[in-house]
């Protein structure tokens, strides 16, 4: 299981998140005409750490969590619960042991053509190999 799958496995267990999006947490792309609000997640940077004679050192990946909604308050509410769940998280996440998750950035985006609000949360996940 990759760290992305562990991220999904964790988010789907956070009641604050599933109260808002049910199971609408998708990798990379939203399904056609997906109801809102919804979440997509995507790897931004993978930085494998090499230890002596092995590629299985601790990992340091950066992920975007995209919080999609039809209005700004809903997008903010979703981003807030995701942030509460992930920011500074340590311990078990899915099949990985997370050293710490750092919230790096938060960007608000409005698309005036489709009237979609979209908040991008950027996290760096420091983890031990599964």
């Amino acid at each position, binding site marked *: 299981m990759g760290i992305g799958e562990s991220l999904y496995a964790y988010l789907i267990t956070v009641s604050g998140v599933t109260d808002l999006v049910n199971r609408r947490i998708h990798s990379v792309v939203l399904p056609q*005409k997906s109801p809102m609000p919804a979440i997509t997640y995507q790897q931004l940077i993978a930085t494998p750490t090499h230890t002596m004679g092995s590629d299985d050192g601790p990992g340091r990946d950066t992920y975007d969590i995209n919080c999609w909604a039809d209005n700004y308050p809903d997008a903010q509410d979703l981003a807030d619960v995701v942030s509460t769940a992930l920011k500074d998280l340590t311990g078990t996440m899915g099949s990985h042991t997370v050293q710490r998750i750092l919230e790096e950035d938060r960007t608000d985006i409005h*698309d005036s053509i489709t009237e979609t609000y979209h908040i991008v949360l950027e996290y760096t996940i420091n983890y031990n190999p599964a």
Partner: protein
Amino acid sequence: MARGSIKGWDETKRNINKLARAAGHQAVRDGVYGIALDAAAEIRARIKSGKTGNLKRSVRARKFSKKNGQFIAFTAIDRKIAPHAHLVEFGHRTLSGSHVAAHPFFRPVMRRYRNGKYLKRMEKVMQGSVRKVRPDGNW
């Protein structure tokens, strides 16, 4: 032991110091702008060629010199050329209800520079500039 003095040494020393300072400033200027150019090239390399090529053309590196000796360079997107840049970087929905996935081309490059590549590149450029005036490479 005979002792003597070199006529005009003080003036020569001042000129050497001046040259060293000038070489240093030029090295910093080269380094900062070189990094901005490198980052721009890496960003362009991550952009898939579109119909117009506007997104690739919108990547800019610029430099400024300040009077207090600071040099500033930046890499940015010219939004007049590519007003859609953020939609590519972060992904977007379409009117038909489909979703276009994000193709991050800007932030991964900037993150790498922030996480140490900047300093490594700067050191390399500075060493190159110093070797032009000091072939032994010592500062």
